[in-house]
């Protein structure tokens, strides 16, 4: 038997924080690729601390639903899962290429395949592009359009920016969009000045965040000038400084994210059969979304 655990942050204050985790877990459940699929959280239940014991499977694949490698993926999750022999060097990563490490959980007799976060997987690049397609409702979006991949950025952890730049580079190499930029909330270049970085009239802004919340639904829309007050919402697209900004919130709510979760587990040796194909087919037939999560366009939209 094999199990999948999707490990996410969750929230004590905001009930929506766990929605993407549940949605992607449900998508994976429907494929039947795993005998058990479980959500686990730092701030909600089941907590990381308790989740492994709720499984009957001997082989457990843990995929962190986080954007970058760093404090949570390298310290908190392995510690709370009681992966005694964990060392970040086992990922042999310079910040964006963690794949997996195989460990034993101390409190249960199970083999844990601890995967890198979804945010740095190559398949995430496709999700960002998919997000641009679903936001503009244009499967061929690219020509004459600029794409801004937005991250939090923080001086405390350089990996946070690395993940954003990594995908921006990969999308740039596809030559699909006229321009591609990596922008940040807390470091240069800043998302506040988004229109300064693009020549194109149309700019698609995709925040590389897992869940919609304060940053994606309040900070970023106001900082970019989409709205003076997030509570009033904003339109998609919205006019800012002569540009049309296409903004629709956290990429983590995109249905195709379930595909990245599966890819991570498969890279770590999970037998997922035809699950990837079935998820992609579902996404395609559902107009690119397989989950219950709609790209949010703000309260007033």
């Amino acid at each position: 038997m094999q199990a999948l655990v999707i490990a996410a942050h969750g929230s004590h204050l905001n009930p929506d924080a766990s929605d993407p985790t549940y949605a992607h877990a449900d998508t994976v459940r429907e494929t039947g690729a795993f005998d058990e699929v479980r959500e686990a959280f730092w701030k909600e239940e089941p907590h990381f601390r308790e989740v492994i014991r709720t499984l009957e499977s001997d082989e457990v694949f843990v995929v962190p639903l986080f954007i970058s490698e760093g404090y949570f993926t390298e310290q908190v999750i392995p510690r709370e899962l009681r992966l005694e022999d964990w060392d970040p060097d086992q990922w042999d990563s310079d910040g964006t290429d963690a794949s997996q490490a195989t460990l034993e959980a101390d409190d249960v007799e199970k083999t844990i395949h601890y995967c890198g976060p979804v945010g740095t997987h190559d398949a995430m690049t496709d999700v960002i592009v998919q997000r641009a397609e679903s936001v503009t409702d244009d499967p061929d979006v690219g020509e004459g359009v600029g794409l801004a991949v937005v991250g939090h950025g923080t001086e405390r952890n350089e990996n946070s920016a690395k993940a954003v730049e990594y995908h921006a580079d990969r999308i740039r190499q596809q030559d699909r969009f006229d321009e591609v930029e990596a922008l940040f909330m807390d470091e240069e270049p800043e998302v506040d000045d988004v229109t300064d970085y693009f020549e194109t009239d149309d700019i698609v802004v995709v925040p590389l965040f897992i869940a919609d919340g304060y940053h994606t639904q309040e900070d970023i829309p106001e900082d970019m000038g989409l709205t003076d007050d997030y509570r009033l919402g904003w339109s998609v697209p919205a006019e800012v400084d002569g540009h049309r900004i296409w903004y629709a919130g956290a990429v983590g709510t995109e249905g195709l994210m379930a595909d990245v979760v599966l890819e991570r587990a498969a890279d770590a040796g999970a037998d997922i059969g035809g699950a990837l194909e079935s998820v992609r087919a579902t996404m395609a037939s559902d107009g690119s979304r397989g989950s219950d999560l709609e790209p949010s366009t703000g309260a007033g939209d």
Partner: protein
Amino acid sequence: MATAEFDFDALLETLEDESSIVFDGLRIEREGETYALETPESDQTDLEAADLEAALEPITDYVTNWRYWRASVGGDGTARRAFLRWCERAPPEAESGDDAPADDTVSTDDDVLAVPARYDALREGIDREWGQLCITARLVDDVDEPAGERVYDLWHVDDADTDLADLEVYDDPCDARELSTYDGDGRYRPLKTAPTLVSGWAFTGLSGAELVETIGFFYPATIENWHRERQGELDVDHWLETAERQTGIYDVIDELPREAVEWMTEACCVDSQCLRRREWQYDEGNELAVDGGDGQFPCREPCSLVVAAARKWTVLESEEEHTYELELTTSELNQLEELIDAVADGRTDEIREADVYDGANRYRARYLRAKRFDDEGSLEARTRDD
């Protein structure tokens, strides 16, 4: 009553492979070409295969019971299986899954039922409470299902006497997530074991696996920790271990004074706030004075809410104390106590608008604020120089 027939050929095949079936009071031994059959009520030997089938006829319940636990439930030694047996008051099994009597580590349950009595009860439906949940285990009355198959219904204990037609009926375990997200006032419930689960819904006809999954969404990990506790294998992480493990912004919580940990457990870890029973102490051999509560589910370490709150209290407890002078009448001092009590007990919504006899009445509080707060909106108080 279950009307489907049990599969005699499958039983013979098992006896071919394993030479005996020993389960819940049923014992069938293959002795060469003949069989011995024993239940607490009967004992027969030297039965030919054809005779065996006839001999099983009067004790179908024993046979279908064996089939249900072997084929439909499986999972020897798992928390899932132990929980489903508890649901129908079946005796606990030893870890090996065979019929050896439960050893001392398995606590003997209250009023367990042997197969005939259990089947009688299952035909009526056996009720169990799990926190604020009520579970009914019953036999399936459906010719298309194997004989002895069970299904489970689940609802809020407050709805035990409510007609099913008046409840919202669900059959997908995942729906439990939505139902457990908000309390009756529409507020988010970050603590799944808070005693604030809303009523008005029912899950019906769940399989055993679905029941366990559904409960896992309502009360995550409670079945697994209950099972461990029953086996004498509950691993408890006491306050200091948990506090010292923390990093980042929670790194400080191991500095929370011993006395403050008592206050914290009194504030958070009591029956009125959580259905779990606190098993963790300050440290191994260093028990907290505050009672851990009577909850059904063991709490094996401080939860994330307690850890988050502890951080705030650690910061607050690092402040120095001062002596303040402020002007209050005796009634106003009493009123401060009433206000704190009302908020701490979540009683403010219950205080009637015109009940000015309650110190936590809104108009009383507004009057106190108007009279005693200064222009900055603070209580007029002076620090007294010692």
